[in-house]
């Protein structure tokens, strides 16, 4: 992951959903980051780990949204900078008002209200791109048709949840 060629490939592979770069980054830097966060922000280890996870997910979002088109020359420094910003923002302002969160963030919130199996199924279908055959195998369904029906039910549940919250808001 060190030559410019490989670095350039990182963004592309992240965009097509290959997250292994960030997983490896987390595994290699977790303890180092926790020490830095303790010294810099007096954060205990579990919270520092959570902060790094949040920052990496945010980084991933930036890449997949297209907000980040060029990999920063020093990724570690960039990630640390993001973490710094996050801690300071958390100190100066409270949690962002709900109304200001974007459409996708709202959908994310609703998504987390679903059951774990529903979440898993939607992640398999919409992120991993599994076909119904494979999804049936992963979830233990009898056949692809059952998987298709189940996914349909989950999508409907999520949509109805969104409809309900929107009518309640208006």
């Amino acid at each position: 992951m060190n030559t410019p060629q490989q670095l350039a490939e990182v963004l592309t592979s992240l965009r097509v959903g290959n997250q292994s770069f960030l997983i490896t980054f987390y595994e290699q830097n977790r303890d180092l980051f926790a020490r830095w966060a303790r010294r810099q922000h007096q954060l205990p280890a579990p919270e520092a780990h959570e902060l790094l996870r949040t920052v990496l997910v945010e980084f991933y979002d930036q890449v997949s949204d297209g907000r980040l088109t060029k990999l920063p020359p020093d990724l570690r420094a960039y990630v640390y900078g993001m973490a710094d910003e996050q801690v300071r923002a958390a100190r100066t302002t409270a949690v962002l008002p709900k109304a200001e969160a974007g459409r996708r963030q709202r959908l994310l919130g609703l998504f987390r209200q679903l059951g774990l199996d529903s979440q898993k199924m939607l992640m398999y279908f919409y992120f991993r791109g599994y076909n119904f055959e494979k999804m049936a195998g992963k979830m233990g369904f009898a056949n692809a048709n059952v998987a298709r029906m189940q996914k349909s039910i989950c999508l409907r549940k999520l949509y109805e949840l969104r409809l309900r919250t929107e009518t309640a808001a208006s």
Partner: protein
Amino acid sequence: MTPPTPDLRPYLDELERFADGQMGAAEQEAFEIRLEQDPELYQAYQLYEQLSADLRWVAGHETLYQRLLSLDRRLDQRQEALARIKRRQRRLQRQWAVVGGVALVALVAVWWFLMRPASTSPEIAWTRYYVPDSGLTDEVIQESQRPLLAEAMRQYREGHYTPALYTLRRVPTSTLGQDTLTYYNGIFLLSQDDPEQVRAAQPFLRRVAMQSSSRLAGRARYHLGMAYWRNQQITAARNTLRSVANDTRNPYQEAARQLLRSDALPQE
């Protein structure tokens, strides 16, 4: 404020079937024609596509989030396991140190125990095997005639060997046989249990032992042998005691045999 979005629900089944490629050729063609002609269906289609895109984003976000979370748990478990192993190793080392310490102490104790009797064993062997002379009885002495001899014997029996020796030397030779005097001189010297006195006792005892006519010769030979042993003259002790052991008339025959049979007297 955004205008209220139209309800997707009436179209959802169709849109899903279309998007997932579940329609037959004729059904798909008909749907595509309707899509161009029905503005409400078209709007629903666009909303559905937006929802799918959002859901793809959410699913990617959530997948990474959960992968990182489970990786975090795994790393925590690994660190905990490593710490546990290290703790166990340290505990084991401590236990071994304690065991080693105890073993060392035990070893030192055993060594001390084994070495201690070696230094005292001659004393123990001496008190075990030496049969002291009982001295002359009162009937033999006839106190009224030989008061000094009686005094010497009393002191001897009470364990005051040096005064006994002085008293004995004051006994006039006319009242007592020369061999008896010489014999008890040797006995009193030997009884003092001092290396020099033991050596000094030897000539007295030897002189009596040489006088085959004396009744004390056999006894003197035994005490002479014991004096050799006490003085670590092993060969002389062995030879002298062997002759005592072979002499059936010697009152110390059994004592000499016992000592010769035991390993207290080193083999040649």
